Every structure is written in structure tokens, then in C-alpha cells.
């Protein structure tokens, strides 16, 4: 453990101990829910404890040993969360894996983490593991939760979770007290979990987090926002992501609140409405999608509703954030806002499932100020945080009443921050990871001797002590004329427009900045429909001159914004093109968490990048795409290149 760790979490210092503690304290309260056959089923903390005990005993009976790794693959399911605790009871390391990974990606993690047991959701995941099993010498047992389609699997090492738990129950009946004794063996500095970071470069790294890391960090954040057992969460983000582990697991165990698992990944929005959580996390992308959908649906609404919406949203944007932050607002405006709440905001929030939100966080990417303001003006307390897997999530988080759209807030409880000379953000906290599994070199380059972690992000503190992140430190480059070039900053500004779903900016060691654009098929498609513009699919739509005009307008606005900032005015976008296909994680162009893999893109689209800098108007391309069933095909297209307006500083002021 690192030298600066804060006092350990007391005697209840592991998740198994927290489970037993919760079962004693709030045993009758719901711990987890799942929608099954159309009905929400809940388990209380007492019931969860029994389930986990049976699972732990079952795992032990079939040979799971202390120190073993247990892979967990599937959508958010109560049983998979329980498997996590069951492994921890036995002193094993749970390794949650991304459920949409292809077998080869899984093989790497299974092999690297030396996984011996896997608890998986269904036949689909079982098949993937069986495909790579001969290349994973440690993998001994596969346990599946959903028996559908599994009857013909006669491999002796493939068994149902049900049968495993039945064996476990029998064992427990014969060995009373076994579970409690086993749960008491763990201590705070044991490894609680291993999460593989998707990593924008190189192979995924296994981040080892201890119970102390997770529990102290979760507890600090619970206190920061006053969460308690009456709160409700929705577990819908990938279990393999450290954020889900904190929001749906660690914080639920620490505060004792109930977490609900959606019926399927397609029903999340409907389930959100039914559950009405009070505590919610979503990446900016989701808030953006929701706002886009609201805007699209409002365009189809009746004239009266459109008028009400427009009128009251104007009022909300003016006064809503101030009311939420407790700043002074005139009496008349308060009365009007209350009327708006009755007529517009309340029904809208109810429709979205946001009615009971006390607290919503967003992180991972910059959120568009329009989107941020929209939700805050409705009275949704959405805040930003800055975190990383290596920190057990929380590094910075915004306080109630002190919220800004373009910062990530002050350091979280127990976190020390410093900005290195190259602009890189370093932190030290109780959540700092133990080490990367079997990768000392990476550990050494990321974590200093005295426990500081190098985030790789470039940022600075604003006047109020809020951290502002601009880009990955290594991605911040220079144009040939010496101007600073922060690609992510530019890309985010582009992506704030609803018509643009993804952007990749180029400029390091070039004469000027240029960009690839992916249009948002839903938003632009809708726009096209309203103009009677027929199109056959993404590629066709993306090649349209009308769409180029639409995007040109967005790029020009970004340039005007950039021109107002002295340091970045030189990095305005001169040329841009709309890519003929959507960047896709299946093609390796994005990470599973949808971050751009720059190197892959530079390799694959070198021809197009050259075209951006050679003054041509059209560039013919051919691209390989991977379909969902694994087959590949090619797309041919002529990609057009357009020039954007650039602004001098004075022009920008005149334009405003």
C-alpha cells in the first residue's frame, strides 16, 4: 500500500463485511432489483446475503481458491454483482469484463489475469469463452446464469449458476457459520477487484484496487453528497468500468441504497422512468441523446405545447440554474418558474424518469454547455466530476451550489492535486490504485515513489479553484507556426453541436488545423427528413452538399469561438471533411468507452489526412467495415473536402 493512505475504513473494511453489516442494520430494506418477466423483483440485504453465501460456498465446492481470479461477463444482473462479492468472500479477485468484447479481446484479459473461473450471463457469453478456452490455460470452470439454450452443453466444466448455488446451500446447511468466518478473513488492504482499462494506446492494463481504495473513496463521496439508504440508483453502465463498480456497487454497499438492474440494455430509458432513481450517473453522450430526443419530439408536438415549451424553457434557462444554486431570483420569476414546473418542467422530468433526481453526475468527456444548462434549468442537479480508474474514480467533483459547465470542480475529499510544469495533472488520494497487475514498468511510469499518480491529462485551476481539463497532455501539440494545438478541446467544441457525433482534429506539426467529422445520423437524418431530402443511409447522407453546408456552419462557429482565445486562435480549422463511415469500436477506431484511437485513425485514413493538407476537393476512398456478425465488407466513396471560414480577433468581436 502507498505510504499516505488515510486511516483504514474501521473494522468493516471489506465488501463482505459491509454486506453482513448491512444485513444486520438494514436487513429488510431492498438492496437490489431486477426487472424480470415484466415485474420488478427485489432482494433485501438479508436475502442478498443468503444468495451471496450460497454462491461463495458453491464456488468453493467446485474448486475456487484464495487468490484465484473470477471473470464476470454480462449485462448488469444482480447475480453478477453477487458473484463479485462471493469471490471477495473467498479472497479471490473479481475481474469484470466488457460484455460486448469479441472473443480475442476476452482471451487477452482471461490469460493476463489468469482467470480460473468465469461467471457469465448467458449462452452468448459462454460461447465466446468456449471459443478461446483452449488458449486460456488457467480457465477451469464456466458458470452461466441464464439457462436458455444451454441444455445441449455437456462439457463437464460448464454448469448453471443455479446448480452451483444449490450445492452451496446444501454445504451451508451442513456448515453453519462458515460464511461469516470466511468473510472475516479479508482485510482492507487486500485486492478487492481488478479492472482492465480500455486504454487508448497499447494493451489493456489490469488496475488492482484494494478494499481500502474503493471503500474509503466511496465513503468520502457518499458523505460529500449526503447519500443514504433511502437513495436509489440504476445500474446500467458496463460492469467492467470502474465507475459502475463505484456507483452501483461500492457506494451502494457503503450507503446501503438500492440499485436497480434494467430488464435489457434496450429498455434502460423505460426502466429509468419506472424506477425514478434519486442518484444517477451518465456520460455526457447520454444526456446529449436525451436532449436531442426531447428537441426532436417537441418539433412534432402540437402548436400549443411548442409555445409552452419555448416560452417556459426560455424562463428556465434564465432563472432555473440560479434557483437550483440558491442564488437570489426575483419574486415574479419564482412564481413563473413554479408555474413552469407545473406545466412543463415537472411533466418533462417525469417523462424522462428524472422526477426524483437529487443528484446526477456526468464525467468522462466534456459536456456541452447547452446540454448542461438545459438540465440544470429544469431543476436537475447535474454536476461534473473528474476521475480515473487509477483513483477509484473520484479526483475532482463539484459541490452543490458551486457548479460550472466548463470545469470539473475542486479536489474531492482526501485528494491532493498538483499541476506539473508540462501542464499535466497529478493527484494523490486514498483511492490511488495498488499497482497494475503483472506490469511493474507501467506502474512505475504512472505512479511515483511517494504515491502521486500522473493522469496524462493537461489542465489548470481557474480563479475559483476549480480544475479545468483541456486535453490529454501527450496530445497537446504545436502547429508549425508555434500555436498550441489541443485536439480534444477542438473536437469537443465540434461535438457540442447536435449534428456532429464524432470529430477528429489534426494539426500537430502541420501548417494548420483540420478535422474529420462524423455526423449524427438521427439528428441530421431528422433534419434531412424535414427538408424532404431523401437518403439511403449514413454514407449517402454524409456526402450530401446540403449536409456539408450544415456542418460548415458548425465549424465556422467553432472557429469564431477559438479566435476569441488568444492562445488557441491560431488553431482554427481550415479544412474539414465528413467521413464516409461512422467510426466504430468494432473496427478498432474507438475504444469500448468510445474514445478516439488516434494512431489507428492516422494509419487507416492517412490518405484522407493527406488530402486535407494538399488542397484537393475530392478524395476517393475504400474502407473495410466489420458487421455485427463478424463478417467484413467494403464501402467505397468519394469524400469531399471543404474549406471553413477563419476569423481574426477583431472579426470575432464584430461578429458577436
Amino acid at each position: 500500500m502507498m505510504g499516505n493512505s488515510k486511516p483504514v475504513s474501521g473494522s468493516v473494511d471489506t465488501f463482505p463485511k459491509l454486506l453482513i453489516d448491512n444485513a444486520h442494520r438494514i436487513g429488510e430494506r431492498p438492496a437490489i432489483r431486477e426487472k424480470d418477466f415484466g415485474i420488478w423483483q427485489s432482494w433485501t440485504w438479508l436475502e442478498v446475503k443468503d444468495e451471496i453465501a450460497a454462491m461463495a460456498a458453491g464456488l468453493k465446492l467446485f474448486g475456487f481458491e484464495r487468490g484465484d481470479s473470477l471473470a464476470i461477463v454480462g449485462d448488469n444482473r444482480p447475480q453478477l454483482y453477487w458473484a463479485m462479492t462471493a469471490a471477495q468472500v473467498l479472497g479471490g479477485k473479481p475481474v469484470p469484463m466488457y460484455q460486448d468484447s469479441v472473443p480475442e479481446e476476452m482471451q487477452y484479459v482471461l490469460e493476463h489475469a489468469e482467470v480460473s473461473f468465469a461467471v457469465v450471463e448467458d449462452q452468448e457469453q459462454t460461447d465466446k469463452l468456449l471459443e478461446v478456452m483452449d488458449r486460456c490455460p488457467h480457465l477451469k470452470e464456466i458458470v452461466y446464469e441464464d439457462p436458455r439454450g444451454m441444455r445441449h452443453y455437456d462439457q463437464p466444466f460448464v454448469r448453471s449458476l443455479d446448480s452451483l448455488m444449490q450445492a452451496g446451500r446444501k454445504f451451508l446447511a451442513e456448515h453453519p457459520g462458515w460464511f461469516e468466518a470466511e468473510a472475516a478473513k479479508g482485510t482492507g488492504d487486500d485486492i478487492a477487484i481488478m479492472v482492465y482499462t480500455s486504454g487508448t494506446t497499447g494493451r489493456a492494463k489490469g488496475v488492482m484496487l484494494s478494499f481500502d481504495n474503493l471503500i474509503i473513496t466511496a465513503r468520502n463521496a457518499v458523505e460529500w453528497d449526503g447519500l443514504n439508504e433511502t437513495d436509489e440508483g440504476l445500474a446500467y453502465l458496463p460492469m467492467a468500468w470502474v465507475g459502475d463498480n463505484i456507483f452501483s456497487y461500492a457506494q451502494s454497499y457503503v450507503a446501503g441504497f438500492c440499485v436497480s438492474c434494467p430488464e435489457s440494455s434496450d429498455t434502460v430509458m423505460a426502466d429509468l422512468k419506472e424506477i425514478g432513481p434519486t442518484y444517477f450517473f451518465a456520460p455526457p453522450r447520454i444526456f446529449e441523446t436525451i436532449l436531442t430526443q426531447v428537441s426532436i419530439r417537441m418539433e412534432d408536438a402540437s402548436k400549443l405545447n411548442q409555445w409552452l415549451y419555448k416560452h417556459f424553457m426560455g424562463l428556465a434557462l434564465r432563472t432555473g440554474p440560479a434557483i437550483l444554486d440558491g442564488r437570489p431570483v426575483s419574486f415574479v420569476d419564482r412564481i413563473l418558474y413554479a408555474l413552469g414546473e407545473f406545466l412543463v418542467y415537472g411533466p418533462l422530468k417525469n417523462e424522462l424518469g428524472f422526477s426524483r433526481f437529487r443528484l446526477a453526475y456526468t464525467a468522462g468527456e466534456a459536456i456541452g454547455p447547452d446540454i448542461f444548462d438545459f438540465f440544470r434549468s429544469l431543476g436537475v442537479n447535474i454536476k461534473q466530476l473528474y476521475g480515473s480508474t487509477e483513483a477509484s474514480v473520484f479526483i475532482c467533483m463539484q459541490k452543490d451550489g458551486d457548479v460550472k459547465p466548463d470545469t470539473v470542480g475542486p479536489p474531492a475529499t482526501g485528494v491532493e492535486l498538483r499541476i506539473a510544469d508540462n501542464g499535466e495533472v497529478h493527484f494523490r488520494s486514498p483511492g490511488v490504485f495498488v499497482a497494475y497487475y503483472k506490469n511493474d514498468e507501467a506502474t512505475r511510469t504512472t505512479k511515483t515513489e511517494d504515491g502521486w499518480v500522473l493522469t496524462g491529462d493537461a489542465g489548470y485551476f481557474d480563479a475559483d479553484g476549480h480544475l479545468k481539463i483541456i486535453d490529454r497532455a501527450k496530445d497537446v501539440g504545436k502547429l508549425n507556426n508555434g500555436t498550441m494545438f489541443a485536439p480534444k478541446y477542438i473536437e469537443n467544441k465540434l461535438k457540442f453541436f447536435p449534428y456532429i457525433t464524432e470529430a477528429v482534429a489534426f494539426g500537430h506539426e502541420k501548417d494548420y488545423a483540420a478535422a474529420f467529422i462524423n455526423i449524427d445520423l438521427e439528428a441530421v437524418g431528422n433534419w434531412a427528413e424535414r427538408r424532404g431530402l431523401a437518403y439511403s443511409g449514413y454514407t449517402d447522407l454524409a456526402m450530401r452538399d446540403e449536409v456539408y453546408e450544415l456542418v460548415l456552419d458548425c465549424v465556422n462557429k467553432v472557429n469564431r469561438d477559438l479566435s476569441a482565445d488568444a492562445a488557441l486562435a491560431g488553431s482554427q480549422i481550415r479544412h474539414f471533411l465528413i467521413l464516409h463511415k461512422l467510426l466504430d469500436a468494432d473496427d478498432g477506431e474507438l475504444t469500448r468507452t468510445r474514445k478516439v484511437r488516434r494512431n489507428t485513425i492516422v494509419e487507416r485514413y492517412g490518405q484522407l489526412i493527406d488530402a486535407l493538407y494538399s488542397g484537393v476537393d475530392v478524395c476517393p476512398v475504400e474502407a473495410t467495415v466489420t458487421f455485427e456478425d463478424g463478417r467484413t465488407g467494403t464501402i467505397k466513396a468519394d469524400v469531399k473536402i471543404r474549406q471553413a471560414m477563419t476569423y481574426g480577433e477583431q472579426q470575432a468581436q464584430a461578429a458577436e
Partner: protein
Amino acid sequence: MTFDRKIGDTILAVDQISLSFGGVKALSNISFSVNEHEVFAIIGPNGAGKSSMLNCINGFYHPQEGTITFKGNTRRQVRPSEAAREGIARTFQNIALFRGMSTLDNIMTGRNTKMNKGIFWQALRIGPAEKEEMENRAVVEKVISFLEIEAIRKTAVGTLPYGLQKRVELGRALAAEPDLLLLDEPMAGMNIEEKQDMCRFILDVNDEFGTTIVLIEHDMGVVMDISDRVVVLDYGKKLAEGTPDQVRANQAVIDAYLGVAHDDDV
């Protein structure tokens, strides 16, 4: 759910069926039998009499000659509602759903034969009718889960894409918990991905519930892949019957599909 798939005895025997509409002979002297737990395909060119055959089996058409024996009961004339009660469910070539109703309500109609409390109780949804509805809803929810259509449970069927509507129709048939499922071109008009999904569901139904399936399909690849046995009709006559391999090698079948002139063509 713990059924072990094994082809059983004859569940459906079609014996010397002839059907004509005025002067048009739709079916002449057709005989074949379907075994329990089998996936059985009826194929043939357009107008071969495939749908007519299906309509005879579920009692929608009444053949002038011949008998149909289902689960040991031989019958000449049967009404579709009786066939449904005996355990025969079907889907249609052209989707026949209630377009304005939700997926859930559409599938609930598949339980119609199992719900027999009076209209009065059902309308008020009290007493025994409530219990009955809950039991039947539970079956429907299993079907929804099985077909992975949770996300469209409350969506009006008319607004769904074609492939999903086909799946809802299959759901309605499944809700009746049939012993024999008749599928009339379940994959017509679908793209490859939708076809793959539908194939998987058909095989899963057969596998999980042991339902005997008789299907009509034009896509030869699909038929040969998923069927245990195949009967080939042409101009209302039976050309061949057997396993996919036997049928594929049959000269009469090859001729029919390659369009060789019929002797009786005028």
C-alpha cells in the same frame, strides 16, 4: 422446460387430401405425416398449394376429400377455433396483427382460448378474472422474454419495423402454448440479419418447448438448414418427401424449380 428433443410418433397425419375451388384443383390427393418434435417444411413454387395445405390443417379450408389426423383424432371438418383449442397455432403470410394495439395486448390475444371467465368479470377485472389474467400475463411475459422483445412491450405494433412485427406474430402463436405451430413464410421480406434471428427463434422454440413446427418457406437455404424433413408440392400435387438431402437430389424437384414444362400444361 426440461424436454429432451427426440423425434416422437406421428402427431399429424394428412391422408389423401383434395381441395378444389370450383374448377381449380388446389390440392389433389396429398398425403404426408409429421412426427412429434419435428421441424417439417412444405415447399414448392408459387401457387403450389402450400398455404392451402396449411389452411386445411388449421380448419380454415375444408377439403372435399381425405382426412387429417391430429393427436389421434381423425376429422374431416373442423373449425379454426376448435383446431386452436386442440393445440394448433399459426402465423400468417401477410402479418395479421392488431396494428393499433401494443405488443403485449397482441400477444395476450393468443391466450384467448385459455381465458374463459365471463366478459362481465373480465371487464371489471375482479375476482376470478383477475387471477386468470395474471396467470395468463405470466405466460405472455415468458414469451416476451423468450423472443427478446421487452423493449417494445408497450409499443403499438403498427409502428414497429416489419421484422419485429413478424416476431410479435410468432409471439402471439407461442402464447397459445401450441403442440403444433404452423408458420406461413416466417421469413418473407426479411433482411439477412432478421432471417438469422428468426431461424434462431424457430429452432429455439422447437428445442426448448418441444413444439412441432410445420413451416412454409421460399428461402431454400433456410429450409434445408433448419428442417428435419421436407415435402415438395407443385400444382397441388406432391412431388417428393424426405430429408433435405433426399429432396435436394430428387429429379422431379429439380425440374419443378428449374421450370421444366408440365405435361398437363395446356
